[in-house]
């Protein structure tokens, strides 16, 4: 069974790129447009969540905090999409319970390498 990855980003182009890259890598991908949408889509178990930091409604940090408080989502790897200028936000994300991060911009191979790093 392919592993399921949820990508959370308010940018359609990023979602599209993440979806394409991960599907090529043999994963199955579901999308959410922001943290709130992600929570509503997490009725089924996923193997990994890749989330942007800045999003309307519920941002990445808020999403991670909510997820880590749910018993069903403890231990699910969460990757942050950050930009190089967001060191402090990245640390905030780590503190909230993120597993790792990917710095934008990235190329498909980098994304796959990081996903493989946390999913095995």
């Amino acid at each position, binding site marked *: *069974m*392919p592993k399921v990855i949820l990508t959370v980003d*308010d*940018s*359609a*182009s*990023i979602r*599209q*790129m993440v979806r*394409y890259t991960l*599907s*090529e*890598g*043999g994963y199955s991908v579901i999308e959410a447009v922001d943290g709130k949408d992600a929570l509503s889509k997490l009725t089924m178990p996923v193997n990994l969540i890749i989330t*942007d930091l*800045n*999003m*309307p409604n519920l941002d990445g940090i808020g999403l991670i905090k909510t997820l*880590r408080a749910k018993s069903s989502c*403890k*231990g*699910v*790897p*969460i990757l942050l*999409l*950050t*930009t*190089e*200028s*967001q*060191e*402090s936000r*990245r640390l905030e994300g*780590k503190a909230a*319970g*993120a*597993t*790792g*991060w*990917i*710095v*934008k*911009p*990235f190329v498909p*191979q*980098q994304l796959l*390498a*990081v996903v493989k*790093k*946390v*999913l*095995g």
Partner: protein
Amino acid sequence: MIDQYKQTFQDEARELVAELESALLELDERGDDPEVIGRAFRALHTIKGSGAMFGFDDIAGFTHGLETAFDRLRNGKLAATRDLINLSLAAGDQIKSMLDEAAGRGVADQRRSADILAELQQLTVTGSEPDGATPVLPESATNRPLRDWRIRFRPKAGVLVNGTNPLLLLRQLRDLGSLHIDLDTSAVPPLGEIEAERSYLAWNLVLRTAAAPEAIRDVFIFVEGDCELTIERQPELAADVGISEPPPKRILSNGSVAGSEASTSVRVSAGKLDQLVNLVGELVTVQARLSEFANGRGETEILEISEVVDRLTSALRENSMSIRMLPLKTTFERFRRLVRDLSLELHKDVELTIEGADTELDKTVIDQLNDPLVHLVRNSMDHGIETPEVRRAAGKRPSGTIHLSASHSGANVVIRVSDDGRGLDAEAVRARAVERGLIDASARISKSEILGLILAPGFSTAREITELSGRGVGLDVVRRSVEGLRGTIEIESEAGAGLAVTLRLPLTLAIIDGLLVRVGQAHFVLPLANSLECVELTQQDIRETHGRHIANVRGELIPYIRLSEYFQIERPQPDCEQIMIVDTEDGHYGFVVDQVLGDHKTVIKNLGRLYRNVQVISGATVLGSGALALILDPHRLVQKVVQSTSGKRQAARWSGAVAKQDSR
């Protein structure tokens, strides 16, 4: 594909610039509203992030300057002055003209970009924040000498909750070179205090690698700050201590450390080991007699001695069994070559991944495991993994993966061969099975039962015969070998997504977990692994079925074999007999015995050459009383009886038989 992204990005960026403008205008009217600033920031952030990703570096670079300003604004380090808003609006226009240029409409004025950025610089106090490190992929070890690194890694208790899997980190280290792992369990609290979500373990590792120290550090990049981590060079001379591998020749030829390694292992011939295990087997038997005798005498002194001997014997047995245990490594590694060669031959791109190669198994089991594994891997290569073209068309990665893994599970070893190939279409399997007369067209059986049918003799779904497999020698060979090892086999598959075959094997063949039964004065042992249950066979049952040798067990009709008849044991007919229900290749069968005495862990002894052709008996064991008990092979026994009674098809039973592969 990429052009489509660019189009999506352009549309999106235009929307975002409009969003930015409206936020700026609102900001102008209402002053510093954090919500509105947040909206503007997010718009810029997304333009920058996606822009860089899809090759609009100029847009990304330009937007970055603006985003920095808004980040400061958001954090209250800057005020939303009219100047700033005007400049931001101008910047928005500039982004639009850059987008136009990218779409082939007009040319953006690069000088203007620079001007706007310069003005922004003036408005905002400069002071760049530190850059975040990008995880670097481990670079390939090029020409660097092999070095030993001593790594101590203790993750904080909460890392598991945060989705970190320490096992994966160790695997990544292992990918860098040879890794010696020592687990430090000193911090594990008493059982009652353990919280399942917390991590209590630490690892002391020695990694021999040519990779750069940065590559080692990069493995831990996501847990930095969440763990205690020390990575240090190990001095060359001490390197061999604690590493099971022989030191590189280079050091040996220097003569400086040779000799320190000499006493750690001894080569012994397999024959001597077999002899040892045989002798221990005898000892166990004698011990059983001794303890029976001691118990009967009721003398404390002899009872005490017997108990000590008992303890020593079991320790000796465990120990001598463990000597015969070998890691699966060599067996597994051999497949790398096989997969490589077959890849070339079949024009397929296949990667072999191996997991749990240090899982240990009795040498005799390993020896007999090679052929079935070769068969399974070939099967995956030949029928499972598609050619790169087909894979691409199906939306998969062009290169396929075959995964070999082994792990312990109680007294069993679980070996799994899985691939991400085309998998099995349950419907096709079913159709073929009907065609071959293995099941009835109307049979209602589950998916796992259907998949199990591919193990039936003479079954093959491959449409054409190729060089490698599919020449009529099907997976039934695998099934037979695995069952010969007293193991079970299970198949999972998703059409289009791959196939996984799981073999469950006993750790050793020298000891059997059996059920001891009695028929008249004779004793027999039935393997416990296949035994399902034990029910009474009353005279009434016999009358109701008119002597047809069928018992009704909770609605299921189970044919049975009377051991007393088969072995022609003459004894007075007991009032009540018992049926051992056993799961065989041909479905559930009952074996009628006088009495079930209980479970019996015993050392298997071969019957010797004279009895080699007696197929229904797989060995013998000596009981505590000194009496002999024959170990039955239920599969063979059923086959014999079925063959001899009539030539009627037993195929219909297949559906029931394969379904129970995994049940105990």
